[in-house]
């Protein structure tokens, strides 16, 4: 053994990260996603100098259901699963809201909204139970339950229609204090804060990340892996329900066929927002911000007079670049070691 071999102690743990560098290392998407969103907002204002509060509000409204779809997918992904029925759960909750609230008062609508959140959590619970107990891969289970929920949505409401009281719709379509602060922005922030912060700060958050990162190690550390995975799907269903209700606020009606778009775009936003497809890494804020980025792209293309069908091409390219970029950074860091 040469002297060079002995300089590297096996107990060398590398430099201790402090302050900003530590924050970036621990929460990379909380740095990259605001930056990406700022870039896209900058580009939007540059190509569309007349950008005003109305445009900001339509962005906030357009992105709200997607933000919840992204949050729903993110929770499940973090726990090491995947939920391809998010869009269909949004559709079910959306048509439930549009049919029950059509002739209801504002107060009744709020009550129905609470009930629909329970329904969403139950749909998620079904996903979770089947995934945990059947041992069929989660992709297969949620793909098929997605078909089922999609059919249920069409049974409830055959074609787009229904509605909700104006005051209820105004919760999302209106604004707070300044016309730049859309009600839908406030709703997203509030829902994420009310649902996610207690989870993330509490023991459940720790369990979700532990199970997503390494099921065997988590089990040996004393974690109930099955229960944790189940609860992740319940949370996913809950976020989906909020997304379905949000969709009524932004469109004013129920749309039984909304499913596919929100499943795929929600997954895209979650990945773009820094959630690992293999679980254990990422958060909710990144995917929510990514939902706004993904909503800005087609809007910008319209301002630029480009065929909005390019939107998907650009969205896809962006996701590949961002995810690849993240992998590249990691590879470079590992090389340095």
């Amino acid at each position, binding site marked *: 053994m040469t002297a060079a071999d002995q300089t590297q102690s096996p107990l060398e743990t590398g430099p201790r990260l402090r302050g900003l560098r530590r924050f970036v290392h621990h929460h990379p998407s909380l740095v990259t996603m605001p930056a990406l969103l700022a870039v896209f907002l900058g580009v939007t204002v540059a190509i569309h100098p007349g950008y005003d509060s109305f445009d900001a509000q339509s962005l906030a409204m357009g992105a709200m259901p997607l933000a919840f779809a992204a949050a729903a997918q993110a929770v499940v992904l973090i726990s090491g699963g995947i939920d391809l029925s998010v869009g269909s759960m949004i559709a079910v909750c959306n048509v439930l809201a549009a049919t029950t609230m059509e002739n209801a008062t504002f107060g009744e609508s709020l009550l129905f909204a609470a009930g629909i959140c329970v329904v969403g959590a139950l749909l998620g619970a079904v996903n979770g139970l089947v995934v945990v107990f059947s041992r069929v891969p989660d992709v297969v289970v949620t793909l098929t339950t997605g078909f089922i929920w999609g059919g249920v949505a069409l049974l409830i409401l055959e074609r787009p229609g229904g509605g909700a009281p104006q005051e209820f719709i105004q919760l999302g379509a209106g604004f707070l204090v300044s016309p730049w602060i859309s009600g839908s922005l406030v709703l997203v922030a509030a829902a994420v804060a009310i649902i996610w912060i207690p989870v993330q700060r509490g023991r459940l958050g720790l369990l979700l990340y532990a199970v997503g990162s390494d099921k065997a*190690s988590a089990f040996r550390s004393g974690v109930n892996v099955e229960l944790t995975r189940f609860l992740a799907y319940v949370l996913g269903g809950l976020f989906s329900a909020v997304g379905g209700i949000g969709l009524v606020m932004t469109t004013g009606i129920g749309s039984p066929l909304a499913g596919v778009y929100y499943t795929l775009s929600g997954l895209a936003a979650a990945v773009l927002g820094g959630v690992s497809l293999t679980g254990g890494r990422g958060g909710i804020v990144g995917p929510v911000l990514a939902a706004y980025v993904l909503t800005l792209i087609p809007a910008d293309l319209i301002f630029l007079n480009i065929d909005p069908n390019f939107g998907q091409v650009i969205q896809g390219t962006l996701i590949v670049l961002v995810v690849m970029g993240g992998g590249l950074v990691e590879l470079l860091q590992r090389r340095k070691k």
Partner: protein
Amino acid sequence: MFGGTNGASGSRGSRVPFSHLAAEMTSTEILLAASNVAKRFNSVVALKAAALEVRAGEVHALMGANGAGKSTLVKILTGVFPADGGEIAIRGRERRFRSPAQARQAGVVSVYQDPALVPDLTVAQNLRLARVNAKAVRAWLADLGIPELDLGAFVRDLPYPVLRLIDLARALASDPTILLIDEITAALPADLSERIFGIVRRWRERGRSVIFISHRMAEVSALCDRATVLRDGLTVGVTDTARGSEERIVELMLGYEVAHTAAAGDARIAAEAADRAAPALEVRGLRCGRLLNDVSFAVHAGEVLGIAALEGQGQEELFDCIAGVRERDGGEIIVRGRPQDFRHPADAIGAGLVLVPANRQQAMLPQRSIRENVALPAYRGLRHWGLIDMSAERERVQEAIRRLHIDTRAESALQRLSGGNQQKVMIARWLASEFKTLLCFDPTRGIDIGTKRQIYALLRELAAAGAAVLLFSSELPEIPLVCDRAIVLFAGRVVHEMAAADADEVTLLRASHGLVPQREASA
């Protein structure tokens, strides 16, 4: 800083008999009593009837050759999976743990071979996950020599030896009455092992018990009071570990009286081959990862070189480096006099080095036919303007199938063949393409005896035809049967080299546990 070792390096000579006396003098309360513990995984019987009895204030070694069932027993005792049968009593009370969390509550905690730490959480979060007090862990980490460890660092960013120490500190902090330590010293430098021994001894002085699994006989006799020996899932004996008991333990592990029989059979020492030009494959000072430290050997054309080692002594890394699956960290690989730098398995195959892995799943196409599986690596030589010459392919494949006596009744899909026939297909594929050196990693694992014999005969036949064969086997009797020479790996180094005639099971097993005759140890 070294004052913290708690006298670990103090009284080496007197300690063993003294502690032994202490164990007898203190109460002989039985902390843990397990009997008739059985476990099978599908068709594989891991444990038949294991028994283990651990007294209070005792360091108890659990020993056995590869696959004897040590780790399975540890995992059953700590609730990782349930036993199929048997009784386990803690302090005389019948217990059956359904999860590690339950075992922990009852005071039974294990430090597993693979640290039970979640990579994407920080150290502190991992401690919270297991509901362990961070302050207590810090104190133990200080004792283990890493007082300044950043508990806010991600586990995935920390090196493996540190993780094992964290795992150990976490286990100690939960204050178990019975601590199980599975192979902790394999990954650690010697001075650190000494620290751990110091802690284990302190633990014993408090009247707690430690179940210690190690392949290193010297550690066991220095640290442990008694040893339970497992063989093929059965407890075959309990013995003192005082100096001089190594022979008895080796006998128990092997299952028969050690008689130094004269090596039978022809002495196929490849002396004449060694004199021939450059070796078919030479490895010098090879290093890779944390397990392969410094391995050098040469294998010549016409020779079968056997490698014996217990699990995790660097043999996987060795074969991966030679076959181009992994990049080495240092050292040289020389093929017929030319230094090589493989970056891909295709490079190694191009240089005439081909690998038959132990795990057939890694190499086979289960849904495809025998023909396609055999021909896969040969396509390079069978192409004509990009198209595959089907008749040439059929010819080569038929020849290989005939030589290996492969049962072709279920030839349309490899997954329908028996394990032995699958393994033969994996060897056949290399017969159909050209190779100079065959790397066989435990090729007979899980294969019936008849097929095994066919594979042995084939390896000899290949060597006779001028191929060089490197054979790692976890079944020690195979080595004198098939090989010309044998080397033994221990802790990532070659500790013993011998002619086949001297490579009896006892010598191989002793060397695998680091017990090497003085002459070779100094060489």
